[in-house]
């Protein structure tokens, strides 16, 4: 008669939940959570007046080397936790222009976003962009009062 409840097989059976939990804990760091921390800044650039909003110090050199505007003013600074296929919309304070950001794909260090810019309920830009660490995507051009609007988007890894 076979003895029951004493062999290694039985021990394993008994401890299945623990084994599975161990596996999950081991593998946890490598499972990509479907979320990306993104920073979105909404900037108004113009040639009316001169000045650089102090909060924009880190992009000062980028903006200065690319554009000839004399004034850069920060309108919104948002930290967004983007989840897969859950778009987030931000309107400029004046409310006529909205940017919508949607995380559509998540590779290890290159999230892909679909970005839409909508003005007065009409889509004026739709783009799909793959972000990489340390880089900023600037989307700009639409007129905003006496200047233009620039969106600065970067991801935190």
């Amino acid at each position, binding site marked *: 008669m076979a003895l029951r409840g004493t062999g290694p097989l039985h021990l394993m059976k008994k401890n299945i939940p623990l*084994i599975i939990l161990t596996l999950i804990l081991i593998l946890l760091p490598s499972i990509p959570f479907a979320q990306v921390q993104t920073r979105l800044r909404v900037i108004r650039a113009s040639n009316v007046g001169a000045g650089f909003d102090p909060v924009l110090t880190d992009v000062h050199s980028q903006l200065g080397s690319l554009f000839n505007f004399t004034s850069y003013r920060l309108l919104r600074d948002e930290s967004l936790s983007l989840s897969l296929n859950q778009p987030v919309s931000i309107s400029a304070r004046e409310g006529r222009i909205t940017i919508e950001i949607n995380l559509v794909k998540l590779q290890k260090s290159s999230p892909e976003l679909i970005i839409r810019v909508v003005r007065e309920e009409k889509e004026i830009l*739709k783009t799909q962009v793959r972000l990489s660490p340390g880089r900023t*995507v600037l989307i700009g051009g639409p007129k905003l009062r006496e200047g233009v609007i620039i969106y600065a988007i970067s991801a935190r890894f």
Partner: protein
Amino acid sequence: MKDSCSSISQLLERYFDRQATDEERSLVERHLPICQTCHERLTLLEELRKAIKAPVDEALKEETFPWVWEKIERGIRLGKKPSWQESVRSWLDLSPLLRKKVWIPAVATAIVLALVASPLLFKKTPSYSERSVVEYLESQDYNVMVYESEKAKVTVIWLFEELDPSTS
């Protein structure tokens, strides 16, 4: 002759487009050999048609439509969004593992693999290109410029408003 020419010229396009009635067609065909003006008008219509049509025929003759269907499938797929419930459900579905004949060797294999593979999983993999990539973009009313600067570590997408609305 003049009156006949002016009435025929009104029928000429219908004749040219093969939309004329039998009576209209024979009227035109009787008139053409004796009227240089209408004959030249018809020739001009033919030349115009040739100029519009020939490049299209030529392009189609050489066209193999490479990967077009695959891109359509991809475009349809990109438009589909699985609900979060479906994503979670498929991720959590461990039921195949619970079948008696499967779970014991499966768990044993998984443990061994995890112990072997975890150093590899923690290893830093080479990242994608340092540059952000614009996969695609579209804009109805603006001309768009894309500019990438390695030095400034920035990708610029700039929209230029059209100065004049299209006159067409």
